[in-house]
């Protein structure tokens, strides 16, 4: 049997699955929007606002998560202390939570009866409540995104040659200089990859938003509302396609920037 034919036969099952469960539904989704669906979402400012706030929350989540994960990851990768393993296990615990549980945790913290509200009330101020808004959603996504970003950063930090940092310091570089010239450039591919995954997850995350409030206007929520409550299939399909396209565009940009290291 010629090699080409054998290769074609071997790849056929994967191709069939790819076609049946990805390309065909995606094509149908794209078509299902119809001219009407696309016209509606392109002309209705509400959907544009929704897309903007979705991308904004995802970008904010990515920035905050990367900042926290880089600091914590660098520290954990270089420092050995008693309880380090336990701390790491606690930090990566949210990996096991569905989005709804994360939303519930945010309500426990910043909801009407939450910890922050009670403390601010006890201190003589107003109830501070931010669980049911975009800030609450941001907090939930950050909490949810930290574990895998942290693990990626730690893996990359452990591979950095410690001699590079020592060389920079011997030449007179301050801690900030070492961070700017050695650590961040060394971590850049990992940070881009982790950031892309973080962004994609935050764009599509639904459970947390659903648990927090239905009036949060992020795209997955809008799609859900159009689809189940208003049976507006064309608009839901068009929005889904738009969301996928926007996320793919951002990931492609990240991949370009990192020279292929991103997911």
């Amino acid at each position, binding site marked *: 049997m010629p090699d080409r034919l054998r290769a074609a036969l071997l790849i056929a099952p994967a191709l069939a699955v790819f076609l049946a469960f990805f390309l065909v539904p995606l094509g149908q989704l794209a078509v299902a929007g119809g001219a009407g669906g696309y016209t509606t979402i392109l002309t209705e400012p509400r959907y544009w606002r929704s897309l903007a706030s979705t991308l904004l929350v995802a970008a904010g989540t990515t920035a905050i998560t990367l900042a926290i994960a880089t600091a914590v990851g660098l520290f954990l990768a270089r420092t050995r202390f008693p309880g380090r393993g336990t701390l790491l296990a606690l930090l990566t615990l949210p990996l096991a939570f569905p989005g709804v549980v994360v939303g519930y945790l945010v309500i426990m913290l910043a909801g009407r009866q939450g910890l922050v509200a009670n403390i601010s009330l006890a201190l003589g101020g107003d109830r501070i409540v931010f669980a049911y808004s975009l800030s609450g959603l941001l907090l939930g996504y950050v909490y949810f995104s930290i574990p895998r970003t942290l693990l990626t950063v730690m893996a990359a930090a452990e591979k950095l040659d410690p001699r590079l940092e020592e060389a920079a310091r011997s030449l*007179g570089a301050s801690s900030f200089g070492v961070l700017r010239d050695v650590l961040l450039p060394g971590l850049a591919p990992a940070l881009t990859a982790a950031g892309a995954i973080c962004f994609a997850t935050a764009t599509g995350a639904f459970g947390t938003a659903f648990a927090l409030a239905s009036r949060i206007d992020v795209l997955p929520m809008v799609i859900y509302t159009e689809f189940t409550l208003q049976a507006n299939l064309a608009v839901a399909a068009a929005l889904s396609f738009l969301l996928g396209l926007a996320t793919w565009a951002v990931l492609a940009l990240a991949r370009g920037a990192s020279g292929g290291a991103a997911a």
Partner: protein
Amino acid sequence: MSVAIRLAGCGRTWPGGSIALHPLDLDIAAGETLVLLGPSGCGKTTLLRLIAGLEAPDAGGRVFFDGEDVTRLPIERRHVGMVFQSYALFPNMDVAGNIGYGLRVRGVARAAARRRVDEMLAMMRLDGLGGRRIEALSGGQRQRVALARAIAPRPRVLLLDEPLSALDARLREQLRQEIDALLRSLGITAVYVTHDQAEAMALGDRIAAMEKGRIAQIGTGRDLYHRPANDFVAGFVGDTNRLATPEGERLVRPEHLALRRSATGGFTVVQATFLGPVVRVLLRDAAGRELRADVPDEDVPAPGERVAVLFQGRSLETEAAASPA
């Protein structure tokens, strides 16, 4: 420009309690090149890192540069140049960026920095490579860039941690000569760590042979070779034989033995290996004790022949052999 280094009571114990370096005193003269020589785990790199400021000595230890106590000064303020075995060049900068890094972070004016970088490129025979990326350089070029980067900010002390170990033999020899010439022309105080005794002999004004966290002996290459302080130094710096004589056990260098064919000789030739300048002959006596002799490649006895062994020089008087403990 060059400074004298003094270590007083400097030891280093790891958090687990194992001792990397027993407390020691060490004086390095201004402009001197001191080689720290020893097998891996002997504490030579720890000692270098204490001088660099990458490790702090145990309580009580102090490090002085020209009388200034720098014990509490972190490496970024000690103004030392470091060269590593792994080169440790910054992959995100080109050759000129690497060499000029120390000038940039110290705030040297741009024009002056560029002049100094060009000067270093010329000195290290790297002309025209300033814009190259690090991946595009050979191992020897990388180590020359690392040297240039360490020297560019005119450090008070130059510290080299096995800088040639990652290179192949030919290149190592060539770069060793270049480093030797460089250290002499700069007149900088340098500490050079290696496990290679040939490198130590070629480079050092003095060699400190280290064993298990202690300096076993410090002196010129000749001192260490001809008057080793103990069995360890005798065995690590050059080859030695243990020879039982009527006066007791003696340590003898292989090149100080000569062989004469003799049917009544005490030794049998086991193996003769041609090494180029000499032939290394392995001998065994009736009791199974082995002896190595380096002899000229003329009429060498063949394996199986019986030979008598003659001294052709002095035996080594180590303190350990002279006064058996």
